[in-house]
């Protein structure tokens, strides 16, 4: 395969990014760009919509049609855009708190509706931008600035949530597994329907520091050692499973809507 | 306001008074007059007091609700008790005497008619009491023509129940005519 020139898809004059040294979000940005490039998508036909948080700043750096929306609402903004422009590829980038706490209802409703959006949930298990508060993805017992005695709540299993809400494509990877991540995002973009890709990503400054996980490199190693491919699931007890966890064909919403409009054509203006 | 005629229909949610009001208002439009209709309902789709006002005028209608009703129809006791004070001094009150006990109040012109019973007897069921009442009102107010009301009924009632409702309406005309004749005969 020809080498991909990622710079072609970036707004280089907006760099450097606001992300902290060692943050995993940049790896996800690279993976998205490579997936878009491999699919040969025209930049004009790609939209990226995000909410609020560290990961949501990604939209500023990519040379697509971009919306930095309000906290938790990226999927709802994207739903309107997709219905207005069904021909566009709409990528929605969200953090874990953004997608699952404040935006949790939009997340499950978009999955249920099965609208053709590619939702990338960058899960660093904490609210980074606001200073390390616990999130609905923080493991039980982990420390956060607002859980100084350890988190009492259990975390969401994002793929299980997406699958049970009706998403036809669900995958999980990590920023350590960058090549695998490229492929999952590419498959998600190819999928007609609501695809969810959860990306475990390191926040060395808050989650790592508060939980004594060492440097960014140590955190990446943690992802290497504590996750296992779905193909080998069962071999690694207690490890998080990576892979394409759901891939099924279900009726997609914008196509269903267009079929409805077609079927009404000629019925006149009531 | 000059030329202003106010109708207040009150009963319980689900009795179809909003629909009766809509039919009456539409008939007024056919007749070329100005009309405004508003409703006052509770939260539920059924039960609770439901009131519809229809303001008819030759000219502009500003205040859209009843100030002093020229005609008041009450299908339930609650509705009668709630709105009886909103009737004009020379206003006409029709109560469904199957359900409402209207004590003869001084200065009030009350016509008790067992609307529900008549409907039940004539049609074998009482769901079209609203249309029967509308027939009665048409005859007693003469604010609209029978033809205009028939037209409006045809446009607004679902085909499935149109036959039944038309019958109820015609029966209402008949009852209304009889009452008018009776009232003319009565010494004033």
């Amino acid at each position, binding site marked *: 395969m020809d080498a991909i020139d990622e710079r072609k898809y970036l707004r280089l004059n907006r760099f450097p990014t606001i992300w902290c040294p060692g943050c995993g979000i940049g790896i996800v940005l690279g993976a998205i760009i490579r997936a878009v490039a491999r699919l040969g998508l025209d930049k004009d036909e790609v939209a990226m919509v995000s909410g609020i948080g560290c990961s949501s700043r990604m939209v500023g750096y990519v040379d697509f049609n971009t919306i930095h929306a309000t906290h938790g609402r990226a999927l709802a*903004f994207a739903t309107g855009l997709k219905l207005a*422009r069904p021909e*566009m590829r709409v990528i929605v980038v969200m953090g874990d708190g953004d997608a699952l706490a404040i935006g949790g209802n939009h997340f499950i409703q978009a999955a249920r509706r099965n609208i053709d959006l590619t939702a990338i949930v960058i899960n660093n298990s904490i609210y980074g931008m606001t200073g390390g508060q616990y999130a609905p993805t923080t493991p039980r017992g982990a420390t956060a600035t607002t859980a100084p005695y350890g988190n009492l709540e259990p975390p969401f299993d994002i793929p299980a949530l997406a699958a049970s809400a009706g998403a036809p494509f669900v995958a999980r990877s990590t920023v350590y597994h960058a090549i695998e991540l490229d492929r999952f995002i590419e498959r998600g973009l190819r999928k007609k329907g609501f695809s969810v890709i959860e990306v475990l990503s390191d926040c060395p400054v808050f989650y790592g520091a508060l939980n004594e996980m060492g440097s960014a490199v140590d955190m990446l190693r943690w992802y290497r050692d504590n996750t296992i491919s779905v193909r080998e699931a069962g071999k690694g007890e207690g490890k998080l499973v990576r892979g394409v966890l759901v891939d099924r064909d279900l009726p997609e919403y914008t196509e269903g809507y267009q079929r409805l409009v077609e079927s009404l054509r000629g019925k006149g203006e009531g | 306001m000059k030329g202003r005629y106010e109708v207040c229909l009150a009963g319980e949610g689900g009795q179809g008074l909003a629909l009766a009001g809509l039919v009456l208002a539409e008939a007024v439009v056919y007749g070329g007059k100005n*009309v405004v209709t508003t409703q006052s309902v509770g939260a539920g789709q059924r039960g609770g007091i439901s009131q519809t006002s229809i303001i008819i005028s030759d000219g502009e209608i500003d205040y859209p609700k009843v100030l002093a009703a020229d005609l008041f129809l009450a299908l339930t006791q609650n509705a009668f008790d709630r709105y009886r004070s909103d009737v004009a001094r020379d206003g006409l009150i029709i109560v469904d005497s199957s359900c409402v006990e209207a004590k003869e109040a001084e200065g009030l012109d009350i016509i008790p008619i067992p609307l529900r019973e008549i409907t039940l007897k004539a049609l074998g069921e009482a769901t079209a009491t609203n249309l029967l009442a509308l027939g009665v009102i048409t005859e007693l107010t003469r604010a609209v023509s029978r033809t205009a009301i028939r037209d409006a009924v045809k446009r607004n009632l679902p085909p499935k129940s149109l036959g039944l409702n038309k019958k109820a309406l015609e029966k209402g005309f008949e009852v209304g005519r009889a009452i008018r004749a009776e009232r003319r005969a009565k010494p004033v």
Partner: protein
Amino acid sequence: MKARVSGGAALMQGNEAVAAGALAAGLGFFANYPITPANEISRVLSRELPLRGGVFIQMEDEIASIAAVIGASLGGLKAATATSGPGFSLMQENIGYASATEIPCVIVDVQRGGPSTGMPTRPSQGDVMQARWGAHGDHPIIVLYPSSVSETYELTIRAFNLSERYRTPVILLMDEVVAHMRERVMLPLPEVEVVPRSKPKVPPEMYFPYEDGDNDVPPLASFGEGYRYNITGLFHDRLGFPTLRPDEINPWLKRLFGKIETNLEDIVWCEQELIEDAEVVLVAYGATARSARHAMKLARDRGEAVGMIKPLTLWPFPHIESIAERARRIIVVEMNRGQILGEVERLVHGKAEVLGVNRMDGEMVTPLEILHALEI
């Protein structure tokens, strides 16, 4: 539209007139969440929009509804939503977003008694200040308020027009009386000019979605048409990227407010009646204006010099201070605790006596109550 036609005259409901007006204005996208007393609007549009190739979608809540509306507007469609007080409260953050990012959209708020769940089926004018200041931070907004079914039709079209012309959210504020009232209208409904969205004429590399300068309202490119740009709720520069630089923020703010404030003549619509010789002037809007007009006519019949002012554009509020130079007394009639009363007092600045006639119990102010206030 299911028009109830007969010889040019028809009976139409206020909420149906919103739907008819929106369609006449070129509505392409409507998202909403069910709420009383606004439901008839979505009932009509869910039937009519798919027939016209437009999009109707019922979202999971009001926040999602307004968010989807903004997304669709960026996709190039004229977009709207409709709600009532509780849903309107939920929408505020994104209304502020649309104001700051200058994305055209129309929000219909059919008010109910409030606060809280309030009285879902009863009228109120309690959202007047929320419509102006509901979103956080200083922001421009346009609020229109009809008092009859035909006005509702006309103002709905106007709401879309102003929204497109000034790249701003426009709120069509209504009360339950007008929304549920059925009134005689003449068909066909009047032809009203429809303003299309202004699109950039420059090549993409020369496009600034937030251009400063003489052109107060830069054209808005639709997504997917070759103009790749960024939209953010953060304070942004000419290109739409976040900035904290005062030298970029100040020109933007100047333009953001200036596009409304320098075009008041086009935006503000206010009707005056019999005020030339009026000693007492009634100020009222929406259904309450009908009570006021009724009272005014009764008072004139009694020989009293009463006139009235009806703002159809509620925000920006019309400059009515000149009437204070003639009138002795101004009476503001509202179904709230005096939300416009305060605005009138501010404008009149002690030059005339200003009184309020107010109700917030779910009943209209009656003409009699206004006449009573005239006698004080």
